[in-house]
């Protein structure tokens, strides 16, 4: 769901302010700040289901996450940098994750771990949010059900690359990436409905196609 194209001004891609001048000092400072941030991303594990167990296995001794800077798992959103949503998010949990995202201070990023967080996964039912990127802005999607720890580490490395490419001159990084005010969603509602349509919705249980 994150592959939809959005107007430039709303995207989370890095933008340069053409007016600002990037001198030697600012680039060094950028590098320093980004290096510090990328290598000490304290995750907030919003672990709900099976992916949370794989997250715990990633944090344990065999696939240690601490060597990537995620030494301290911040369970309070107010002290976290990156929200790792590991597991399926039902509708009852949607306002909770929205609230937790709002409680995190800037700069913050989000990793959507697993198929269920990225797109609803195998849970195409009445109760599960089909992708948390409708309710919070996601930076990195990690596919898998559950993703192997190596997969999660790949996703974290991708996020670290993204953080390293940020620039102080980019004005968008200072703003909270707000949802569409009328629907409070991050993807336009007609697009959400259009993406869910092909699978239909029926009470017929015994047909071949689910």
């Amino acid at each position: 769901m994150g592959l939809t194209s959005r107007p430039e001004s709303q995207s989370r891609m890095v933008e340069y302010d053409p007016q600002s001048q990037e001198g030697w000092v600012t680039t060094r400072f950028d590098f320093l700040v980004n290096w510090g941030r990328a290598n000490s991303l304290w995750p907030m594990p919003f672990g709900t289901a099976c992916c949370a167990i794989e997250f715990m296995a990633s944090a344990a001794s065999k696939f240690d996450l601490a060597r990537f800077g995620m030494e301290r798992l911040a369970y309070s959103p107010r002290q976290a940098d990156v929200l790792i949503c590991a597991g399926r998010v039902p509708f009852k949990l949607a306002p909770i994750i929205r609230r937790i995202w709002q409680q995190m201070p800037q700069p913050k990023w989000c990793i959507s771990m697993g198929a269920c967080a990225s797109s609803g996964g195998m849970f195409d039912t009445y109760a599960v949010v089909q992708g948390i990127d409708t309710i919070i802005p996601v930076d990195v999607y990690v596919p898998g059900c559950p993703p192997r720890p190596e997969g999660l580490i790949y996703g974290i490395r991708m996020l670290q690359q993204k953080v390293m490419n940020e620039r102080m001159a980019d004005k968008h990084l200072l703003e909270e990436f707000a949802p569409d005010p009328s629907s409070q969603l991050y993807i336009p509602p007609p697009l959400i409905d259009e993406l869910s349509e092909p699978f239909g919705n029926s009470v017929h249980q015994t047909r071949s196609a689910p």
Partner: protein
Amino acid sequence: MSETFTMVVTGSALPEDTPMPTTPYQIPHKGGAANPSAEALTAKFGDAIKSVEVGWGETTVYVDRAQLKAIIQWLHDDSTQQYDYLSDVTAVEYRDAVRPLEVVWHLRSLPFRRFLRIKTTLERGTALEVDSVHSIYHGADWLERECYDMFGITFKGHPDLRRILMWEQYKEGFPLRKDFPLRGRFSRSEQLRQSLTQNPEAKYSMEELSITEAFAELPDDVKQRLQGGERTGE
């Protein structure tokens, strides 16, 4: 509290020389030895027992809805039955529109090592109500709430019957009914919008708790407004 408990052993009501149970094989699809409780039930309750079926080694007893609580109470209290363990309370709705909804209780007797399934049918057109067995088995508390949440069956006498798996203001209906489509009645974006407006903190705020305790003494218009869902959400 500095007490120790004497061990409760399963099978304690069986005769001393009964061998330990073994894995069942060659189980017939229908027929076979019924659970002795079925016979005892028909002897005691007569007409209230509609039928007894034995399938795959399990005995299912269909009972009349009105006598349900008396039957389950007897099964729990009687010393020859001692069904002290409630395993499950659930409901089944068939795809065939003619067949009525059935509510199912799975009872287990630990002293006798028996398993019994009690079913009652809720005829189409009648109210979806059955008696709650909460006063007999405390474990029925959440099981019956879940049955209400998923099917809309009201359990009369349950102290706190409200939704447990979906949120309380859930408007789409009762999910496990056959006329409820898999992906819900509303569109995905509408479901998202409705879920974001639920206010999870309002329930069981101090305001809510004091309202529940003082509800009886409030004036009528305030009661109306509260029952309509108005809260300040403190």
